[in-house]
């Protein structure tokens, strides 16, 4: 497990840069990771999705899937892709300080 300093705070990350301890996450970290991922500014629309993912993960223990986000956060798939380009589920999970969504091989 590697350590990385994001927004001035030392946090645990895995080899793909996903934080491994959601408790270490802060809003400043979210903004910094978002920048690295090509999202210069997090808008209220972004935060709606991030907050949903944080609370979903807190109750289920895992980052939500794309479908769980669109069904639960009140955002349609197209808008979600516009907010978090390419792989939204993966990208939100990273920004929200959650582990990589558990995919299967």
């Amino acid at each position, binding site marked *: 497990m590697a350590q990385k300093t994001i927004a001035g705070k030392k946090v645990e990350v895995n080899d793909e840069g996903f934080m491994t301890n959601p408790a270490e996450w802060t809003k400043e970290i979210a903004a910094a990771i978002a920048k690295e991922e090509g999202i210069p500014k997090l808008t209220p629309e972004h935060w709606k999705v991030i907050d949903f993912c944080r609370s979903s993960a807190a109750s289920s223990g895992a980052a939500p*899937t*794309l*479908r*769980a986000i669109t*069904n639960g956060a009140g955002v349609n*798939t*197209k808008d*979600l*892709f*516009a907010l978090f*380009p*390419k*792989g939204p589920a*993966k990208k939100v999970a990273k920004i929200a300080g959650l582990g990589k969504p*558990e*995919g*299967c*091989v």
Partner: protein
Amino acid sequence: MKVFLVLGAGTAGTMIARKMASKLDRQEWKVVLVDKDDDHFYQPGYLFIPFGIYQPKDVVKPKHRFIPGNVEFILSDIELIEPDANRVKLVKDGRSIHYDYLVVATGADIHPEQTEGLKDGGWRQNIFDFYTADGAAALAGFMKKWDGGRLVVNVVENPIKCPVAPLEFLLLADWYFTRRGIRNKVELIYATPLSEAFTKPTSAAALGDLLTRRGIQLETDFSVGQVDSGKNKIISYDEREVPYDLLVSIPTNMGAPVIARSGMGDDLNFVPTKKDTLQSQKWENIWILGDAANIPASKAGSVIHFEMETAVENILAHIAGKEMTHQFDGHSLCFIESGYGKAVMIDFSYEQEPVFGTYPLPVVGPFSLLRESYINHWGKLAFRTMYYDMMLKGISVPLPTRFTMVGKNLKTKTKK
């Protein structure tokens, strides 16, 4: 009499019903198995149908042939599962069954209607699936007459059954059109929602490399939002367009509708399951086996074979009021047919990604991991016989349950 009820007589349901019927006291327990029909498909065989290697008749046998006499087999649709009342309502005769223990093994199916435009005019004209026997047969008919163009294979979303099947389809297509002498007229494109050819780093690199060497193009991070069958193109949510002449779609895979009706599933109707014990996350007398579960393992027959020991031992322990000691490790083993008489093998678990090396198997092995070989191909072909004649009939298959690192090489990261 106590009732051990199994829903679904596919791979997982058939195997667990047989095993439990032989383990449980006959004086005390009755094992009941329910399915909607009597066709047992060998699903891995679908892949070979479009290329004329198998015919539909090669991949289906009657279910009842694999169900032993000490299991009551009922043919009926399932109306509703009522887990809080330990009861299942069947469609046939309005019958209800009270159970003491329940296994849900209702599998997963494709749902093309989940994607806008996928089932419009082009469906079964120049858009096909190969995840059903009739879809694969229709595609075979089309491919035989096709004189070339852009063949796009598109995975709509994950998880899907047999995650390597789309890659196998493309590799076999390269071989098939080469053999027909029209490979130079065929473009092969793989449009996937993943960022690489496959999920985990080592195998993604190795399999990506194999696609490149076969002249197969990769369109990554492609989440299809719409199929425009009038203009023959698929359009992603971020508005990229991929034109096709022949679209081979792997539509959204979902658990059985009865799971949704019964309020037991997640967003894709898969049942939340403890990934180590295979018990339901919510009901302690329910186990979920095979494709119906939401565990992060492949939806594949080999996984069911590896799950079986854990499931049987844990269910028996639970019935006896003892601690459950068996833990499923997410073990999965897949052959990836690559054409030209060769195949690749991958062997992995929850913790360990697929790597290079060898897979030891007495007499016939070893198989080669992440590399093509002839022996892997013969292993893949032999599997159909092993499946129908051994696995389903309760005859021990020489593939040990636990994932092992024996033969695996962690140092090799790329194919040399």
